[in-house]
Every structure is written in structure tokens, then in C-alpha cells.
């Protein structure tokens, strides 16, 4: 390991490596904390996705049911004609929010639900069932916009979670063990050198005593 890092067994190098190991450990701790926080965020978004998706499905199901009823009562062509008359543009305010460096979308819709008068079709020639259909689809639309925001947030948070996990694992299983191995190698080498020096000194001392 130490050879792979190409290090020289000196005290200076040992100090540098110890500093790097402490930085790596601190980095690893913080990345783990970030991972924990991302997991909290991810599960929270997932919980809301499940909640909103169930609501949207229920709402869409009742919207399609009321559409069928309306078509049966008013007729398909008349319903389609009324739908064409009530076309609209939806104002969505798209901004971003940051979740630990992850840019997640925020969609805010001013007003999706409209009153029967605002919808644009004739109230005189249409059935009240059509109002119910329109209202149901408007509520569905609001829920679908919310769902889109949440699903995209879940996707980007999951991506960041994966990246953070990879980095934390690289630190935990490759970089930190490599640094610790190098430190161990230098400590061992320095101890060895000290022992060599000690025995050399002893021999020199013994030789000098023999001569003297």
C-alpha cells in the first residue's frame, strides 16, 4: 500500500499523512451526516409522492366517471364542444429550492379551480354535470402539478444520495485505509531505523571499549 502511494518513510511525511488522515476522517463523518440528511429528505418526499399520487388517482378516477356521466347525459359532441370553448392558459410559477446543494423544482400555481362563469362555456346550453366534470379535472390538474414537482425532487435527491454514498464509501474503504496503512508503514520503518541505530551505537560503544 505504502509503495502504491510512493511515500518516503520520514517524520515529515508521517506528520503530513496524519493530517491528511484526520481531514479524511472528518470529511467522511460529514459525508455520512449529509447522507443521513439526504435519506430523511428522500423518505419525506417519497411519503408525499405516495400521498399525492393516491389523491390524484382517486380524483382522476372520479373525474373520468363524471365525464362518462356527462357524455351520456349531454352527448359526446356537445361535451367536446363545451370543452373546446373553455380552453385556458395556466400560469405556473417555476422556481427552485436547494436541498443540500441539490436543486429541486418548486411549482406554484396561482389558481387552477375556476368558477362556472370563468370557464367560458355556455351555462344555458350545458348540464350542471359539466361543471362537476370541469371542477374534478381542475382539482386533478393541481394534484398532477404537485406530483410532478415531488417526483422530480425524488429523482434528483436519489441521484445526489447515490453520489454522496459513492464518495463516503471511497473514503471509508479506500482512502482512509490506504492512509492508515501508509502511517503504519512509516511508523514501522522509523521504529526499525531507530532499532538499527541503537544496535549500531551499542556495537560502536563495545568496539571503542575493547580498543580503550
Amino acid at each position, binding site marked *: 500500500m505504502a509503495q502504491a502511494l510512493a511515500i518516503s518513510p520520514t517524520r515529515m511525511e508521517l506528520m503530513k499523512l496524519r493530517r*491528511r488522515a484526520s*481531514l*479524511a476522517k*472528518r*470529511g467522511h*463523518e*460529514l*459525508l*455520512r*451526516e*449529509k447522507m*443521513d*440528511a439526504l435519506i*430523511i*429528505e428522500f*423518505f*419525506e418526499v417519497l411519503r408525499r409522492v405516495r400521498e399525492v399520487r393516491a389523491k390524484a388517482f382517486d380524483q382522476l378516477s372520479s373525474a373520468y366517471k363524471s365525464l362518462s356521466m356527462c357524455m351520456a347525459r349531454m352527448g359526446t359532441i356537445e361535451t367536446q364542444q363545451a370543452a373546446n370553448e373553455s380552453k385556458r392558459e395556466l400560469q405556473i410559477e417555476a*422556481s*427552485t*429550492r*436547494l*436541498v*443540500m*446543494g*441539490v*436543486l429541486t423544482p*418548486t411549482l*406554484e400555481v396561482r389558481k387552477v379551480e375556476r368558477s362556472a362563469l370563468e370557464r367560458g362555456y355556455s351555462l344555458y346550453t350545458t348540464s350542471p354535470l359539466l361543471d362537476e366534470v370541469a371542477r374534478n379535472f381542475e382539482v386533478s390538474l393541481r394534484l398532477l402539478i404537485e406530483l410532478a414537482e415531488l417526483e422530480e425532487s425524488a429523482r434528483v435527491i436519489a441521484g445526489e444520495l447515490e453520489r454522496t454514498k459513492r*464518495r463516503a464509501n471511497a473514503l471509508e474503504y479506500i*482512502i482512509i485505509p490506504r492512509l492508515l496503512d501508509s502511517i503504519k508503514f512509516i511508523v514501522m520503518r522509523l521504529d526499525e531505523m531507530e532499532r538499527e541505530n541503537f544496535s549500531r551505537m551499542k556495537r560502536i560503544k563495545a568496539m571503542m571499549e575493547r580498543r580503550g
Partner: protein
Amino acid sequence: MKMDRLLKVELERLNLHLPKERISLYEALSSAKPHVVAKNGSIHSFKREELELLGKMVGEEAQKKLRLPILISIEPRLGRGAARITGDVEVKVVSQLLGKEGRGDELIIYRPEIALLRRKLPTTSQYLFMCTG
């Protein structure tokens, strides 16, 4: 050396989402598009419903003192899963939201409480990773 640089970049990247400058709740409430600019230049918007919830919790004087986003400071020396909230008004608001007793200008919260706080204030709170200590 390359590894040191990579590690430093990684540690710096942890806090790039923090705002260059925090704004008060009062300013946020009176702004048409309440937001802050992060260190990396991106925009972090606050949801109006959250601002209104906070506005109801504190008086007008405290609205000027409450700086947004509220920082959830993660410090390794506190132990895994613990975080610190600092600031008089911030502590008051967070302890009220969590139903926890909080006095002074410092409050320690733990993982389930962090999750609850983030659920209640997803845009008006942010994580801060303390690299020192």
C-alpha cells in the same frame, strides 16, 4: 496532494447551498418573490405558506430578528444525528414547532426532530455542515 485538494473541494461543496446573505422573515413576507441567493449563485425560494406560518408564530418585532433560512447546524462533535439551532427567535420558533422546551439561544435537536422540522419547514430551513470541531 491531489487527494487533499479533492477532499477540500468536497468539504467546501457541502455548504454551497447556503445563502450568501440571509434575509429576515419581515423582508421575506413583504417581498413578492421571497428568495435568497446561494453561494453557488442558484436561487432558493421560500414558500409563502411557510412564511405565513412563521409570521403567525412570532410578533412583528421578532419577524425582523428571525433570519431565513433557519440553519440546522450539523456538527460531528455533537454525535451522529444531532444538530444545533442557534439564535433567540430561531430557538423559540423551532421549539414551538417541535413541542420541545427551548431556552436561551441554543437548542440541540435529534434526527426524528430534524425530520419533523424539515417536514414543517422544507424551504425555510436548511442544513449547515460544520467542518471544524
